[in-house]
């Protein structure tokens, strides 16, 4: 079968209103956006604090967080698996092979990305704001909050990088989610499964949706950043 035929079949699958397909898309979005939300909740203040405070060992922490940006997903998946498995320390909660486990794994993966990029942006802004904030006599926490709020349009990029990683991730969610039909199956694990089954049209349809969603989200964020920078200036 020609590549063009596969594309045609994939488009047919998309427009046919296949419930299974939209279930997988819906779960993918739920898991990825939840993970980004929790990672941002941790990464934005942590990156901001790292940028705006000085303490012994700060350089070491920065090197560590930068290194964690490249965490191998399967290793993270394995660690979370060991933590959540029945014999693991968090086994009592029964989270393994649930969407919650997948959110935890993705949060672990993308928090260092959001933290590191936030630190860079806030540190840049901090150079301009340093004296002015000193004159306002603000506390370190207020200072960090101010820098995050005023760097909000640039921090969109940090969030986007995290979302991109979350949506494209397959190894960790496969291990902790188990790719269970109608329960923990997401787009990336579906693509892997359908490809191995030879169901290339469905795999390609999911791939197309994944790419379209990524492009659409990036475009929206780019417009938001452009609007913000043209209105409030750039860092």
């Amino acid at each position, binding site marked *: 079968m020609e590549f063009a035929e596969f594309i045609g079949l994939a488009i047919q699958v998309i427009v046919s209103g296949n419930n299974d397909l939209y279930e997988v898309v819906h779960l993918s979005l739920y898991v990825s956006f939840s993970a980004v939300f929790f990672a941002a909740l941790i990464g934005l203040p942590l990156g901001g604090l790292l940028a705006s405070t000085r303490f012994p060992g700060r350089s070491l922490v920065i090197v560590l967080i930068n290194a964690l940006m490249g965490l191998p997903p399967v290793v993270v998946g394995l660690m979370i698996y060991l933590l959540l498995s029945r014999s693991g320390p968090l086994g009592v909660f029964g989270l393994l092979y649930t969407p919650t486990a997948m959110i935890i794994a993705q949060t672990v993966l993308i928090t260092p990305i959001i933290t590191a990029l936030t630190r860079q942006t806030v540190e840049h802004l901090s150079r*301009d*704001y340093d*004296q*002015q904030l*000193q*004159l*306002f*006599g*603000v506390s370190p926490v207020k200072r960090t909050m*101010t820098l995050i709020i*005023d*760097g909000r349009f640039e921090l969109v990029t940090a969030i986007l990088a995290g979302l991109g990683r979350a949506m494209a991730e397959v190894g960790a969610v496969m291990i902790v989610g188990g790719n269970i039909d109608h329960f923990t199956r997401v787009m990336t694990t579906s693509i892997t499964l359908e490809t191995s089954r030879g169901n290339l049209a469905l795999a390609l349809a999911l791939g197309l949706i994944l790419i379209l969603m990524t492009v659409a989200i990036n475009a929206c964020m780019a417009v938001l950043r452009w609007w913000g920078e043209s*209105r*409030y*200036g750039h860092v």
Partner: protein
Amino acid sequence: MPVWPFYGGGGKAAMVMSDSRPISASLTSATASLGGRVVLNNVSIDINAPGITVIIGENGAGKSTLLSALAGLLPLDDGEQRLTETDGRSAPITRVGYVLQKPVLLRRSIAGNIDFAMAAVDIPLAQRPSLRAQVLEVMNIHQNPKQSAFRLSQGEKQRLAVARVLAMRPGMLMLDESTNSLDQQTVTLMENHIRNLADQGLPVIWVTHSLDQAKRLADRVVQIKNGTIETDCAAADFFR
């Protein structure tokens, strides 16, 4: 130990400053260095009277350094810096209305910038809208307060920076070459506003490299050269 009368009199400036108390700023045998170079050398100065003190000197003489040392922004290698309330207590840096040479406006609206300053010094919430309106009026900023500060002209940004520090009800105003990038009309406008505030009892320290501006504004002149104060006298004596 009240040194100055509280602000009173009429005019818009007096209205803005009505709840403020002046403070004094001093350096005693202050020495400071930047990158291994001595930028202040055994400097002693006390600004403890109302009126405009102008710091003049050539480029690189140490004018801005002296101002930031007086405010407490510059760490000293030796000597002492003090900001003092009229009752002798130590004053926090937020009592200084310091306008940086290149003012840094927050990436917010005009109102957002002023509100941030008022929050920094805990101006009661109920007083904030009227105080904001007053400082914008005093500094002749008539744009919509919801407009982004980024979209203001250079002169308007400079005036907003002054309005912002006025909203903090400072006990002293420090201006670091604050009219450098402004056209003559705006310079005159700002000079008149600051003169008005000084006449109401707000101590002002104004750094400039322009002798003409010093002549127009100064009650007291401090001339600095190579990080050392060369002259410190009344403007009438300096320009005689």
